[in-house]
């Protein structure tokens, strides 16, 4: 208690020295707090305002013909239910986008049409983030909902300039729809926005249901879904693993009826060379039929059926249509149950995709190397290279079922994350350099201060202070000064952040523009970051004071009193 009172009194008596030293500590704290908030701000901006729009925090891509740009999953409600069931998920967004050739007023350019779901359940924070990321210069997002023949469009001012259009003017598009058919449409510009994110200058936004219609999606079909998570960095991997497990495909089978009323289970017969060897050997299929992509194997006991063709029909999973097909190249084989047809997967999936049958039950009994699954689900990619390779390899399955890839932002948006990491690293180094310059000054001052007070130490020792008490006194003084200065430093840091974030910055066509929010630097101070800075600086100050105070305390009172600078 005595030491505390003495420490406070000493700080008060040496006011100028305390103020100068405290100011240095406060400045160091302010730099650390500001830099930490800036680095965290970059992460927040990237995760909540950039990656969310580009790839989501995690997601599922489904493609049917090996073209990753042509995304189609036939059972959207199933996919959504799988994703919405995860507790870490804040929001599920449908990612509808297509590359287009856009014709404006005498100019043309490539662009991306992106669907915006105006009914999406965004919370206030997300809505504000969207408004700050896309600052409307003309019109508003709700204008996308305008009904009429012309499809309302919102685009960046840079894209509007490239196409030579302004609000109220027309843009025509050409693109391939979800099934690969060429499609054309036209829309009217109802809004123009400004964005600091150069990646967001290419898209042209359109209301999602209008785009889905143009893309030829049925109401139950999906283009793939992206997830917005509560804690993306920590949860993305686990969520993707859970999704991957939940999306395990079943053996694809259709419960079909023949024109004669018989019920049959129709399976897809895999066409890869390894599988061909398997079923050709098992069922004795002649070589001349191995490459026939319409071959159907039936049990030899199905003699009652027409030997040349079998007409089948099956119920649809969604919609009112029922599926119909005629199997023409029939080969009766021994060893196959009469209620089963094995149909080459090329023909099988053409029918399956034409009218999707109800989801098959779990089936066992067939060798899975021989029959097809609902979809191909490759292992979850762990790196960007693996992810890209998987998308490329999907081309191998062009004639068969869809390929479903579960990803996280760490693979899908790695370029953006690398940029975030680099910016954080640069910030860290800049802060470290600045911080150590300030720290060296503080440390030197502390050392000198204690050295200057050697005679005072001698007096204290002469009136009965123990060495340990003297050292404790100096450490307490440093501790009090550091705590108070850190408090001031935090306040100063907030003032610096407010000052810096009020300066408008124009970074057009610069990737660094994406770290800006509303055209300004964005700081996101956190309690843990501030506490870390305060504890770090206080500990360093006390540690620095430790050695000179111990040396001084160990002096004999006579030596200390004789000390002259």
């Amino acid at each position, binding site marked *: 208690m005595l030491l505390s009172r003495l420490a406070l009194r000493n700080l008060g008596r040496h006011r100028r020295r305390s103020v100068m030293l405290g100011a240095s500590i406060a400045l160091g704290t302010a730099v650390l707090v500001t830099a930490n908030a800036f680095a965290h701000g970059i992460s927040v901006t990237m995760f909540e305002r950039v990656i969310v729009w580009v790839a989501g925090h995690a997601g599922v891509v489904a493609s049917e*013909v*090996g*073209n990753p*740009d*042509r995304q189609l999953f036939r059972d959207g409600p199933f996919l959504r239910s799988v994703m919405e069931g995860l507790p870490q998920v804040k929001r599920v967004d449908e990612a509808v986008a297509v590359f287009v*050739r856009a*014709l404006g007023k005498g100019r*043309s350019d490539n662009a991306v049409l992106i669907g915006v779901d105006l009914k999406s359940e965004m919370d206030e924070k997300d809505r504000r983030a969207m408004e700050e990321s896309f600052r409307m210069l003309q019109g508003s997002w709700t204008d996308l909902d305008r009904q009429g023949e012309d499809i309302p469009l919102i685009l960046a001012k840079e894209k509007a300039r490239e196409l030579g259009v302004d609000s109220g003017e027309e843009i*025509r598009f*050409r693109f*391939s*729809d979800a*099934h*690969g*058919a*060429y*499609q*054309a*449409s036209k829309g009217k510009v109802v809004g123009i926005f400004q964005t600091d994110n150069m990646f967001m200058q290419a898209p042209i936004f359109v209301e999602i249901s209008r785009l889905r219609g*143009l893309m*030829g999606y049925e109401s139950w079909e999906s283009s793939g879904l992206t997830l917005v998570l509560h804690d993306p960095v920590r949860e993305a991997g686990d969520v993707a693993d859970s999704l991957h497990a939940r999306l395990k495909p079943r053996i694809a089978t259709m419960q079909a009826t023949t024109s004669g009323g018989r019920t049959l289970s129709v399976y897809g017969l895999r*066409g*890869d060379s390894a599988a061909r060897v398997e079923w050709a050997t098992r069922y004795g299929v002649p070589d001349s039929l191995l*490459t026939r992509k319409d071959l159907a194997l039936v049990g030899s006991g199905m003699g009652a059926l027409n030997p040349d063709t079998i007409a089948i029909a099956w119920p649809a999973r969604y919609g009112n249509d029922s599926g119909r097909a005629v199997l023409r190249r029939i080969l009766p084989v021994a060893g196959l149950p009469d209620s089963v047809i094995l149909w080459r997967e090329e023909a099988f999936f*053409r029918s399956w995709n*034409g009218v999707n049958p109800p989801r098959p039950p779990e089936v066992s009994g067939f060798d899975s190397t021989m029959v097809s699954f609902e979809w191909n689900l490759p292992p979850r990619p762990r790196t960007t290279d693996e992810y890209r390779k998987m998308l*490329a*390899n*999907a*081309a*191998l*399955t*062009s*004639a*068969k079922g869809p390929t479903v890839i579960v990803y996280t932002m760490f693979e899908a948006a790695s370029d953006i994350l690398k940029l975030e990491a680099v910016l954080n690293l640069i910030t860290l180094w800049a802060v470290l350099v600045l911080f150590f310059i300030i720290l060296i000054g503080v440390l030197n001052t502390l050392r000198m201060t204690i050295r200057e007070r050697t005679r005072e130490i001698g007096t204290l020792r002469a009136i009965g202070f123990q060495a340990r008490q003297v050292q404790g006194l100096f450490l307490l003084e440093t501790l009090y000064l550091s705590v108070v200065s850190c408090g001031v430093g935090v306040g100063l840091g907030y003032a610096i952040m407010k000052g810096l974030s009020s300066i408008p910055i124009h970074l057009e066509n610069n990737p660094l523009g994406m770290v800006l929010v509303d055209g300004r630097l964005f700081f996101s101070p956190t309690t843990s970051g501030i506490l870390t800075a305060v504890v770090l600086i206080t500990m360093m100050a006390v540690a620095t004071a430790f050695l000179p105070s111990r040396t001084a305390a160990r002096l004999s009172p006579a030596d200390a009193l004789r000390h002259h600078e």
Partner: protein
Amino acid sequence: MIHTLILPILLASEPPTAARLLDSLEQQSRLRSDATATVRLTQTKAGQGARAFALRWFRRDSDESFVILMDAPEAERGNGYLRSGDHFWMYRRNTRTFQHVNRDESIGGTDARGDDFETRKLTELYAQADGKAGMPVSDTLGKVPAWRFEVKAKVRDVDYPRKVYWVSRDGWQLLKEQAWSSTGTLMQTAYYLKYQPVEGRLVATRMLFVDEFEKGNRTMVEVDQIRTDKIPDAHFTKAWLESQSK
């Protein structure tokens, strides 16, 4: 002889059904043997001038194989494409590597896509359009009498959901083809300008594809040196493609 004289008259008199015309177009386009040809594409883009492409083309429909070797422009020379069964590779001469590509991939920077070379039956993809538009009616293209009829897609994975054909009345050769999007926009018009007899059949050797969406874009396709000799199996291999590109 009588058959040769009478058939065109019979064909030209009464409007045939759209199904018969479609079936005829399918039969005409179907390859009965291997085929080799050189193809020259002159692609004109609005505001960019013309660009010429030359390629050698080897095709065998019996096992869905083809090889394309690019000869021009210089930037594409030596590159190639190989389709063998389900596999479709692109070969890059500079890197001497093969890469899997999908059926939507552009061939050598042209407007042609991988699926343009797929052998899907026209009658499985299209059927007569509903109403009067689908009924063949008499028309004239320049001075050539023709049947005009419209078809609609039976499946969704076709390039165009609606097409209008003009076929000659005397031999049912395809003369003109309009391709429409599902939103009712005319996307492309193809003119079949010249036919050449190959093994008793007429094969289109000069075609003009006009981009109706982006005015000024057009591609002239000229096919030459058509041969129907059997192509050795070795041609449809990576090794052969690589050896030809040196």
